[in-house]
Every structure is written in C-alpha cells, then in structure tokens.
C-alpha cells in the first residue's frame, strides 16, 4: 500500500528538486502530474482539486521564490499538505467512558468488519488488558454469527451466545446487558454489511446506535475503494454518525487514496488500519508517518517501534556486550539475521526505510529477497559450533563441506564471512563510543540496553524525516543504483541505514552483487 503513490510522487518531485529556480509554469506542470498521480491512487476528485489548488497557491507564492532551493520547498509543501489531509495527530481508540464501553462497527458488505472486530478485540484484551465481549448483529449473511464465534475462540475473546430469531437491536441490548452483568470493560458490536442506499438497513443501524449508545462508531472501509469512498463515508456519517474510520487491506497493492479522501470528507479521524490476514494485523494510524511513507521518506519511527516490540532486550544487551568486547561471532550474526526475519524480513523493513520506493525495482532485479536471509542462516547452521565461535578456522575443505550442507557455494560463504568481518570491525568502532544519531539508534537497539522511551522515539522522529532537508530525501540523492555490493555496516543492527549520515550506506547484510 502507498508504494505506487510514493513512487509516482517522488519521481515527480525529484525532477523539481534538481532545478535551481522554478517558474509558474514548472509548478503548474508538476501540479498536473501530482493531480494525476493522486487520481490514479483513487484519491477522491474533490480532495484532489482542493489539494492542487492549495499546492499551487503556496508553491507559486512567496514561500518558494524566496527559498534557496525552491524544489525542496515544494516537496515540503506537498508533505505538509498530505499531513493536513490525513489529520495532524494520531487519534487512537477512545475507551474513556463508564464500563461497559460499547464500540460499534459499521460498513459495506465485505469491507472486513468481522475480521477487524476480532483483531480489535484481541488487541483490547491482550495489549490494553480490557475484558471484552463481542456480539454479531448480522442476522442476514449466512453463517456470519458463526464466523464471529469462531474468530472469538481463535483470539480467546468471549462472544455473546447466539439466539436465533432476534433483531439486531435486541441483540445489541442483550449484549450490553450481558456486558454489565459479566463485568466486561468493552462490548464490541459487529453489525451486518449494508449499502448506504438501503434506507431500512441504514435506519436499523441508527436504531442500534440509539439502543446501545456506543462510545465509538467505527466505519470499516476497504482501502482499495475507488471514488465511491466519499459517498460511502459521507452517508454513514450522516445517517449513523461516526467517531472514526478503520481502513482495511492496507497490505494490498492499492495506492491508498481512500485514506486521503475519507478523513478529508468526514472530518473523522482514521484510527486504525488492518495490515494482514493474521489476527494481530491491526495498527494505529499515524498520519505523519503515512505521509512520510507516501513521499518515500520512510517510516523510521514505526521501524524502531517494531524493533522494540520484536527484539528480545536481554539477548540484544548480551550481544551488544559481546560486540563491545570484539567478540561478535557467527552465532551473534545468526541471531541478528533471525531477528530481521522476525521483523518482517527485508521487504517489511525496506518499506519503512527512507527513499526505498525508488529502489524496489533494482532490488527485485538484484534478487534481494528474504531467501537471502534464510540462505545465510542456513550457511551458519551448517557449521559446527566451534566454527561458529571461531570463523578463522574456515579453510577450503571446511567451506566445501558447509557449502554442500547448506546448498550454497563456497563464494556465498566467503561473502558471509566478509560481511561478518566488516560488521565485527564496525562494532568495535561503535563500542569505542562515537556519538551521533547512529549511536543513539545503536543504544535503542540494545547497545545501551533497554527500550526506547516515547520521548526518545519522538526525538529520533524529529531527527529523521523532519530534520532532513525536505529535498534531501535520504536515498533520493545518496543511493545510486550501485547500492548492492557494499558490505559495510554502519551500526549494530543489520539492516538499518546510517540514519542521518548523508551517504546512507546500506546496511543489508550480504547484499553481495548477484550475477
């Protein structure tokens, strides 16, 4: 999601940033291209028109002409406007009400209400520690209620027992009652899919709302929706009244225009986004991060958060300690490779790194996929424990054996060893205490031990996309196609680019040139 749009926009804006001075005609031409890019991403026409008008006004005005680098100024304007359109701040689910807090899910058929309900319930239970009850008010689609019951079992959340023949309003009342009696904190009401033209169905939803008095009414909408997203969001907001929006199927290859439109049209925040088939594929929606991702600036904050959530702090601290002492062996390398895989593999990480959108094709051409990680782990697994601790043992005959054992070639092993050596050297240098943004990140990743605090994260965020000159999208300038082939590692965590350093040496292990 967003990649397509990201690719298009950064291409257009790149051309601008290379120019010294901008004429009104330049801005016009760029604005036309931005308009087309947005429309092809399914952003609603009215939103696009407003966006372009403001863009032109600001871009042709004083702001740009006086700035030293007009092109970069335009990028900044687009970025600011994207954030404005998406909403300035993240707006999470609000549970600040007397228990049981009712949350009602509405939407079209097939938008993902039931799946989202289950994901949300899982999150409320496990992360926010709320006792949650789910109830399906879908009396229409065959087996809809069973679906929620099955999902409830899967995620370990209670569902309201099914009583045949009740109306949705009756079920809602029964759910609230059961919520009170059962001491539940939250009652999630999953309603039937409905089209906005069906007056009876819309009236029913409004009635359920009156009966259950939900604290949150969330519109579940498919991120692949086209221009109709506007009608959809408007009607649900007018007829039922919304407090927020959940975008599903963000993991598709759509361009996410609906995300830009819905907030603008309803004024209601996008609170959550569904990011996969698994039950934990639900994330908070952070407008600034999404805007950064759309402009190809990457999403470093999410990356760090993800790292913090996935990485075993103790293990990381232990590794860090060993690194400082210069004892970084192949066991440690394997651990790091495995951690990368856990964090979503190369693909997942890359999506969040600055300036990567443009390189996706080159990466595909260079065959840089997750198999590479697996293969490298396989190589290490084919070594004896002694070899792993002491890679210097590896001479030709041992390499042959390992190559046969892991289904690779001796040169792959050489590449891995070279990478390991490079990393170990880097570790020593890092350990000796250079300071800078990279060291700060190193700290977070485990060098200093402990998890990054929100403040630290914020600081890092400021250092990153905002702090970079808008036009100097890291990677836009610094990462020519020769990206693979640099085995140098700037930091303690494989896969993180040299944050803040202008050159952005890519840190992906073993990006050895492929033939």
């Amino acid at each position, binding site marked *: 999601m967003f990649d397509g749009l990201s690719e298009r926009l950064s291409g257009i804006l790149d051309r601008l940033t290379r120019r010294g001075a901008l004429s009104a005609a330049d801005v016009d031409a760029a604005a036309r291209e931005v308009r*087309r890019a947005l*429309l*092809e*991403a*399914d952003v609603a*026409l009215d939103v696009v028109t407003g966006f372009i008008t403001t863009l032109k006004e600001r871009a042709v005005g004083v702001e740009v002409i006086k700035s030293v680098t007009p092109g970069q100024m335009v990028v900044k304007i687009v970025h600011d406007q994207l954030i404005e359109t998406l909403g300035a701040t993240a707006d999470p689910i609000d549970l600040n009400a007397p228990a049981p807090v009712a949350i009602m899910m509405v939407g*079209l*058929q*097939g*938008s*993902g209400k039931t*799946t989202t309900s289950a994901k949300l319930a899982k999150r409320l239970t496990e992360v926010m520690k709320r006792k949650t009850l789910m109830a399906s008010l879908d009396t*229409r*689609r*065959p*087996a*809809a209620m*069973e*679906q*929620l*019951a*099955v*999902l409830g079992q*899967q995620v370990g959340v209670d569902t309201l027992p099914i009583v045949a023949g009740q109306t949705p309003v009756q079920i809602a009342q029964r759910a609230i009652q059961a919520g009170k009696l059962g001491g539940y904190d939250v009652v999630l009401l999953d309603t039937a899919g409905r*089209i*906005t*033209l*069906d007056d009876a169905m819309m009236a029913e939803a409004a009635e359920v709302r009156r009966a259950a008095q939900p604290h949150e009414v969330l519109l579940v909408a*498919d991120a*692949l*929706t*086209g*221009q*109709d*997203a*506007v*009608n*959809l969001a408007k*009607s649900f907001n007018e007829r039922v009244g919304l407090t927020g929006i959940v975008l599903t*199927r963000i*993991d*598709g*290859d*759509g*361009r996410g*225009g*609906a995300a830009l439109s819905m907030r603008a049209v309803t004024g209601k925040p996008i609170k959550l986004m569904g990011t996969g*088939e698994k039950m934990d594929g639900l994330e908070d929606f952070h407008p600034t991060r999404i805007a950064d991702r759309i402009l190809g600036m990457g999403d470093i904050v999410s990356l760090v958060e993800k790292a913090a959530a996935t990485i075993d702090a103790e293990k990381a601290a232990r590794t860090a300690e060993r690194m400082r002492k210069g004892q970084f062996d192949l066991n440690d390398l394997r651990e790091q490779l495995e951690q990368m895989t856990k964090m979503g593999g190369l693909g997942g990480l890359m999506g969040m790194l600055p300036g990567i959108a443009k390189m996706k094709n080159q990466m595909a051409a260079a065959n840089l996929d997750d198999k590479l990680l697996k293969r490298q782990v396989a190589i290490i697994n084919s070594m004896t424990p002694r070899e792993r601790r002491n890679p210097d043992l590896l001479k030709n005959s041992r390499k042959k054996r390992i190559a046969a054992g892991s289904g690779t070639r001796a040169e792959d092993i050489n590449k891995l060893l070279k990478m390991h050596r490079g990393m170990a050297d880097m570790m020593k240098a890092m350990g000796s205490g250079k300071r800078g943004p990279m060291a700060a990140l190193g700290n977070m990743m485990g060098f200093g031990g402990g998890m990054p605090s929100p403040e630290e994260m914020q600081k890092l965020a400021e250092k990153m996309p905002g702090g970079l000159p808008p036009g100097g999208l890291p990677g836009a300038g610094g990462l020519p196609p020769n990206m693979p082939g640099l085995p140098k590692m700037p930091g303690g965590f494989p896969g993180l680019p040299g944050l803040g350093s202008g050159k952005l040496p890519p840190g992906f292990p073993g990006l050895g040139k492929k033939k």
Partner: protein
Amino acid sequence: MNDSTQKKSWWQRLKGGLSRTSSSIGTAITDLVSKRRLDAAAIEELEEVLIRADLGVAVAAKVAAAVGEGRYDKSVTADEVKTIFAAEMEKILAPVAQPLVIDGSAKPFVILVIGVNGSGKTTTIGKLAAKFSAEGRRVMLAAGDTFRAAAIEQLKIWGTRTQAPVIASTAGADAASLAFEALTAAKAQAIDVLIIDTAGRLQNKAGLMGELEKIVRVMKKVDASAPHAVLLVLDATVGQNALSQVEEFSRVAGVTGLVMTKLDGTARGGILVAIAAKHRLPVHFIGVGEGVDDLSPFAAGDFARAVAGLDG
C-alpha cells in the same frame, strides 16, 4: 438475452441508486451543460465526472475527447451529451458483454471463482447455483475457502437453499486437495456444473497466489481441460486497483471472465470500462443485491447508460 421483467428489476435498482446520489454523473452533466457551451473547460469537467465514476484518468480523457470531437463551441443539451457518453462507453463495453456459456460436452463443467477478500465470491456462487439449478442442471459446490472462519458454513447454507450438494473439508485444510476430491466426486455422480469457492486473497500476496495456482494445477490431473471457466469477482466500489487484480489473477489462474458485484450501492463500477479498454475480458454477470435472484447478465448498453446517468 434477458427478458424484460428481469431487466427492469436491476435497471430500476441502478436508476434508483443514481437518483439518490448527489454526485451521480447524470446530475453533474446536467448541471454542467445547461450552464454553458461545450468548450475545452467543459470537456475537462466532463472528464472529471468520469473520473468520479472510477473510469480512471486515461480512459476518462479518451471518452471525454471523443465527446468533444466535432462539437466544440456548439450548444448541446444535457441529454445529447449523456447519449454520446453512453455510446462511447458502449463501444468499449459491447465486445466484452458475453454470457457465460456452459459447454455441455464437459462433464462436469468446472467453474473456479476467485477474487480478493470480501468481493462477494460466496454469495455469487449461491446465486449461480440457483440459476443453473433452475435451468435444470445438476450443480455441485466445493467449499474451497478453508481459511475464513465459517466460510464453509456459509456455502453449506447456500447449498441447502439451492439443493446443491456441497463438498467440504475442515477449516484449514488444503484447498487444492479439496478441489481434487470435489472434481472426482462430481465426475462419479455425473454432475453438470461444479462451482469451486476459494478463499479471498490479495493479489500481491505471492504465497496465497501460489496456492491458487496449485488448485488449478491439481484439478488438471483429474480433467486436463478443467477449470472450464475462471471467474474473477470484482466489487463495484473498487478503484484503480481492479486493473492490477485482473492482471495478477489472470497471470496465475487464467481468468476467463468477470463478475461485478454490489452494483446496488452508490458505486457505479466505472472501472469495468477501464478494464474492458485494457484487457478485453468478457463480463458475464452483475450482482445487484443479496437475494438469490439478484444476478443479471451483463448488458453493455444498459450499463453504459447507467454510468452516464441516462434514464430508461
């Protein structure tokens, strides 16, 4: 190909939808043309109207240009413009409006139904089963969506409604082996039409697309000509992403035709015009409601007129 009562029912639904949608093309064109002559700015606005219907930038520009040709600076009525619009779109759509022909020599005739999550595959299968049963064919359903909770139950309920036997396994089972079993069983029981449901999948998930490929591959072991039809189900609300869906699903499973669902909402499904312009895949049916009969053959003229906002 469709009798008048049937045509009327979905036609009225489409019209009903338009009359209540403030941003519908019909009103937009009326507003636009009644105000001024057809000049470059007006053509551009017409183009925007088409973009709103999800035709996509390229196709909208093409259609709008065709409307402008030879009519610059002439005063035209709203209806004239709409008629020209409809005619232009019909030109694109007419070649793809083809009914789904059941080849009687294939026994069973295997229909594989695929699409992204929530596009309406299972409901469409229920409607297809009802239609084929009504035509006197022996229908069997295979519950190949072994992923989504209660999808099997949903299909079983449709099986009961349409009196079609349902071959099902347990949730989480291998969909390809189920397809194999179903095809073997259908052969043994002299079934005419076997319709296979599949789990919804996003077209950019390589693993899931690989699974789909396997379903097709495995079926060919029983009957080399199967599946005889591969229907991609598209939701009318979908935007430009539908183009990528058509491409990817065709590459993996060889889509032979399209079904567009949920045309009873405010979405006009204009993306079909863009798909027709680019891929020329037959469009067999449109879904206009949740009822068992709410499936109609696709008629290019009617559809084009509905998108353009023309009355009857």
